[in-house]
């Protein structure tokens, strides 16, 4: 498994802390301070607050993330305490660790999308010009918040926090590595997104961008 600096890592602790009248759910993150992640955390806090849960979010930064990921890749049998959500893709055919999940589309999915694409096109998991299936609302919300277009990296960061928060809030007592493969997520793509049982990548629609970065017709 190859990790790059651009890959974002998310460590989900998801531990319910008993003893207070307001239930507390803890989310441990290993993520850079990136706008997509920031919006995800803000929305996760709001979602938790709505349903009377105190969401204890701790972002420990990216320092140890790559090391944990490399360790998991070398030793798929290693006992990772918490499931890992890796934002970036890994190479096709890499070893799948039972507790590691990838928010990016799989390399195979991207390869298939590019097979019929015009020369110079790039497969992307998100684009700031997407409009259907509520994409316009998400793109507008991001841009109004940060005055930036929502890039593929930003979407992946936002999606990673959304997945972690939904899993932790809906299944506070469960082992999230067991729960994640059973859940369906909404990424504003018009399809139910799930983790592939074999490659652990989030199965999702991908889009094509031309050499100029513009979204190609089709979506």
């Amino acid at each position, binding site marked *: 498994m190859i990790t790059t600096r651009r890959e974002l890592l998310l460590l989900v602790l998801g531990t319910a802390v008993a003893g207070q009248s307001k239930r507390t759910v803890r989310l441990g993150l290993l993520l850079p301070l990136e706008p997509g992640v920031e919006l995800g955390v803000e*929305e996760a806090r*709001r979602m938790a607050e709505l349903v009377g849960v105190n969401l204890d979010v701790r972002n420990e930064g990216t320092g140890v993330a790559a090391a944990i990921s490399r360790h998991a890749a070398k030793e798929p049998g290693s006992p990772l305490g918490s499931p890992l959500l890796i934002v970036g893709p890994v190479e096709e055919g890499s070893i799948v660790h039972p507790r590691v999940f990838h928010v990016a589309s799989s390399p195979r999915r991207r390869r298939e999308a590019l097979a019929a694409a015009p020369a110079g096109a790039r497969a992307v998991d998100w684009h700031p010009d997407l409009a259907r299936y*509520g994409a316009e*609302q*998400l793109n507008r*919300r991001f841009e109004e918040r940060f005055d930036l277009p929502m890039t593929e990296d930003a979407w992946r960061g936002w999606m990673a926090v959304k997945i972690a928060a939904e899993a932790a809030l809906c299944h506070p007592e469960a082992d999230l590595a067991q729960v994640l493969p059973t859940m369906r997520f*909404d990424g504003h793509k018009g399809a139910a997104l799930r983790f592939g049982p074999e490659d652990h990548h989030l199965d999702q629609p991908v889009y094509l961008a031309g050499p100029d970065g513009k979204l190609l017709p089709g979506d």
Partner: protein
Amino acid sequence: MRKVRLAPLLLILAAPAFSGPFLYVSNERAGTVTVIDTATEKPVETLRVGARPRGIHVGPDGKTVYVALSDTAREARSTADSIVAIDAVRRKAVARFDGGSDPEQFAVSRDGARLFVANEDAGTASVTDLATRKVIATLVVGIEPEGVAISPDGRWVYVTAETSNTVSVIDTRKNEVVASFLVDSRPRAAAFSPDGTRAYVTAEIGGSLSVVDVARHQVIRTIDLPGSRPVGVVVAPDGKLVWVANGHGHSVAVVDPVQGKVVATIPVGKRPWGIVMTHDGRKVYTANGVSGDVSVIDTASRKVVATIPAGAGAWGVALGR
């Protein structure tokens, strides 16, 4: 000679006796409302309302049709954002109300005095007083609020929110959010049972229908609707079956909430969104956005018995008295 004199008289008597109730269809791309006579299942008039009409309801006295308007392409709050009132008899817009930013779905209070409006981009619900035409309360609800439903006794308003997967409960006596609960992924619409004990919430991405105990505002069951994309929802007058428009599934699912399963799937037009049932429970109408028409389902045979042309982007349906 006598026959010749009688014929026109009979025609005049027959025509008004069989008209109505009327069905009102909002067409979000055409910017119009199609008026359909349910006696003949034919459109009788198209009203231009402009902007992007989506949510549509008839007031409790049957005299006024309310339509939510917002802008088609927008960066911020638009001047098009409003709720327009159409006189059901004259078929003319007679008033315009402030419904907050980007109004989409809404409900009319049982006394016809207020509107409860979801403001999608603001993450709020607005309470509009129809006498003063002003917003009297703005309540924080979930992220990207969408569906709005009011309980039969008028006490509770449920507002679904697509991104936070939540339902916020407004107590209409206080105009406050008194509870919120989680449902399945991307909740789009809600409907109460006629006795007010249950509410049903569709989840488009979850592909399910959540059954809510209204006394406790808690989900008691989530019914999987295999292969579906549930959006609009309506409960039969006897409360026994729940009819769900399947949007991109291009069908209507008939759900038995006690058995917890789909008992029939009826193919309709392309992308049904809004769904309404006649007061006698005999017919269901769906507004089909991609095919721009309305499907009429006979509930006894569970078959589409007519398809009525509407406008581009047919979105919501409301039935008059």
